[in-house]
């Protein structure tokens, strides 16, 4: 058996003393980095790079990858407890996670996030093990029209993200798309809406936007409250952190669905964990029997994005390792790390460096396990953080936001933009405009524009190009269903009521 042989080879690397030690260091640093708002896996990995000079290449990669997925997990902690999304994908976790905290169930939310992340990671690992060559060819088959259609699906799904007025939610999506247009237009090279500011030519900084809208906005809203309820928590025993018995079955299905969506979206270069988390959350809400519960402290609203983003992060290694195509900036640093270690990434990596590839894959399993073991006991520590008085906590949060945002690209400008988005965020919160759809529009909008125009350019201006490929056609049909389904269900409800009235 090939796969057993490969696994054994990988286990030899990953279970070595060095392998275990640096895997642990990686996930530990990752968790820590994820908890700190803004610092993010990118900064941590680039800073850890020089340290890996003294390690053998597979071990170095194991550690750096550990930082990456550890940070995804850590990001959920600050999101759930403090409504501070360290990464864009954690912004989705904020929606229900922070509500759960406010309802006094932070332990349950953190526990669910841990289990969901773990399952998502293991799910993606199985995919990497079994299907890497297949998925790799699939990734290059995905063209501009397919990307456009899948993102359209995401955007349509986003209309379900909001709590309250659907019109306000849709307006926020559009405002997000508009904000996303600031900066250089990739297709033509023209600068748009930069007002001559150099710092805006690459667009609004995503971290500044997320931190401002969610973090600073929320803090301002809290400070404005004349009377604040002290946070109650649900005790600190292990039992109190477990979801209720009736919540379990639905939770497992949610986690598996999230893992599937996450692994699929993550394997596409150029999509990433944030889109995976948004899509999976939206899908979950769509198929849920009581979608009204989402955004108000629904446990599945934590499980879904958390399983999806962790699955996506690990699935992203498929195109990176088997094709040499980095899906995002973090993957680009990991490829850079390989080159520094004298390893040529690319289509031949799996065969030319089997020890590294399989060692890394096996280490994902170990790392996820370590994260689970490490974090379940830590939940108690994190929850205690909430008992810090707010007048001590909020200056610290603001301070971490400032340094974190600065460190993303060493830019003072981004500190100012965080402040502006923070004030806007406060107004949005108070006027009941949901910030999450804005963020999704901001991420998806520019990508949709680029892919739409590129598809038309390559298709020589023929709009049927969007129905030329199978994935694109499928996603377009799904988008149409997403739009029509609510109409149909209102129609059904009405006819049901009518027939019932008729019988009476």
């Amino acid at each position, binding site marked *: 058996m090939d796969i057993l042989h490969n696994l054994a080879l990988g286990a030899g690397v990953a279970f070595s003393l060095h392998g275990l030690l640096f895997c642990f260091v990686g996930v530990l640093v990752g968790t820590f980095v994820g908890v700190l708002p803004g610092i993010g896996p990118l900064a*941590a990995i680039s800073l850890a790079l020089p340290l890996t000079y003294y390690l053998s290449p597979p071990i170095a990669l194991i550690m750096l990858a550990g930082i990456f997925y550890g940070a995804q997990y850590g990001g959920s902690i600050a999101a759930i407890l403090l409504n501070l999304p360290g990464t864009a994908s954690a912004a989705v976790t904020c929606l229900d996670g922070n509500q759960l905290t406010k309802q006094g169930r932070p332990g349950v939310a953190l526990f669910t996030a841990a289990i969901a992340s773990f399952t998502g990671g293991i799910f993606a690992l199985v995919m990497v093990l079994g299907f890497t060559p297949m998925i790799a060819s699939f990734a290059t088959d995905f063209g501009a029209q397919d990307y456009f259609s899948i993102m359209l699906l995401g955007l349509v799904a986003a209309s379900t993200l909001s709590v309250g007025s659907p019109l306000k939610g849709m307006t926020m999506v559009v405002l997000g798309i508009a904000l996303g247009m600031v900066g250089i*237009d990739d297709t033509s090279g023209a600068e748009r809406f930069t007002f001559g500011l150099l710092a805006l030519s690459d667009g609004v900084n995503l971290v500044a936007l997320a931190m401002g809208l969610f973090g600073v906005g929320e803090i301002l809203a809290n400070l404005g409250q*004349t009377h604040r309820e002290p946070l109650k928590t649900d005790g600190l025993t292990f039992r109190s952190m477990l979801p209720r018995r009736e919540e379990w079955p639905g939770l497992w299905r949610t986690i598996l669905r999230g893992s599937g969506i996450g692994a699929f979206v993550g394997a596409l270069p150029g999509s990433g964990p944030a889109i995976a988390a948004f899509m999976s959350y939206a899908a979950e809400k769509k198929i849920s029997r009581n979608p009204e519960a989402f955004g108000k402290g629904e446990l599945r609203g934590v499980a879904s994005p958390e399983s999806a983003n962790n699955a996506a992060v690990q699935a992203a290694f498929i195109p990176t390792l088997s094709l040499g195509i980095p899906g995002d900036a973090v993957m680009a640093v990991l490829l850079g790390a390989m080159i520094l270690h004298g390893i040529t990434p690319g289509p031949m990596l799996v065969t030319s460096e089997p020890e590294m590839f399989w060692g890394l894959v096996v280490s994902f399993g170990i790392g996820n396990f370590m994260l689970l073991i490490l974090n379940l006991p830590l939940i108690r520590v994190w929850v205690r953080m909430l008992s810090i008085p707010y007048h001590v906590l909020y200056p610290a949060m603001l301070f971490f936001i400032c340094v974190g945002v600065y460190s993303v690209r060493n830019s003072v400008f981004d500190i100012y933009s965080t*402040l502006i988005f923070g004030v806007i965020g406060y107004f949005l919160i108070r006027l009941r405009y949901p910030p999450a759809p804005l963020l999704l529009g901001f991420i998806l909008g520019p990508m949709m524009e680029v892919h739409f125009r590129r598809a038309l350019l390559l298709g020589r201006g023929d709009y049927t190009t969007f129905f030329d490929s199978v994935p694109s056609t499928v996603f377009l049909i799904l988008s149409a269903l997403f739009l029509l389904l609510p109409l149909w269900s209102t129609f059904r409800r009405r006819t049901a009521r009518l027939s019932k009235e008729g019988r009476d």
Partner: protein
Amino acid sequence: MTRPINWLQVGAAALLGLVGAFFVWHGSDYPMGSLRRMGPGFFPVIVGAVLLLFAILLVLEVAHSEKEKDFWIPRPILMVSAGFVAFAALLERAGLVPATLVMVILVSLAEKPLRPVSAAANAVALSVLGVVVFLYSFGIPVAAIHW
């Protein structure tokens, strides 16, 4: 019985409409291209127009919504802004420690009652933490203190 007009909500919706109008107006400065080959101006104009349309619908939706209580909070907004601006201005010129001290003190003033001792202690603690975590561990490219 209808509630009186909620001018705050109407104003916010109108502001969003202005943003939409701005995108249409400014976006049309860029080449529009054609439906088959779109220029950089095409999407901004469409998006701006949709935003404008939504804003108009919103004005109708929110006109008589319930009034927000305690909406204007000048003190927190001012003090948090002052803290951010001071931090941004001092970070690269004076160093991380002075920037942190000034920032933490300023944002601590956002809330009543004033707690000078606790704010000062917090500022010192965070400066130390910042230097250890961000300068020594993460190596962000600023000095602790510029002489």
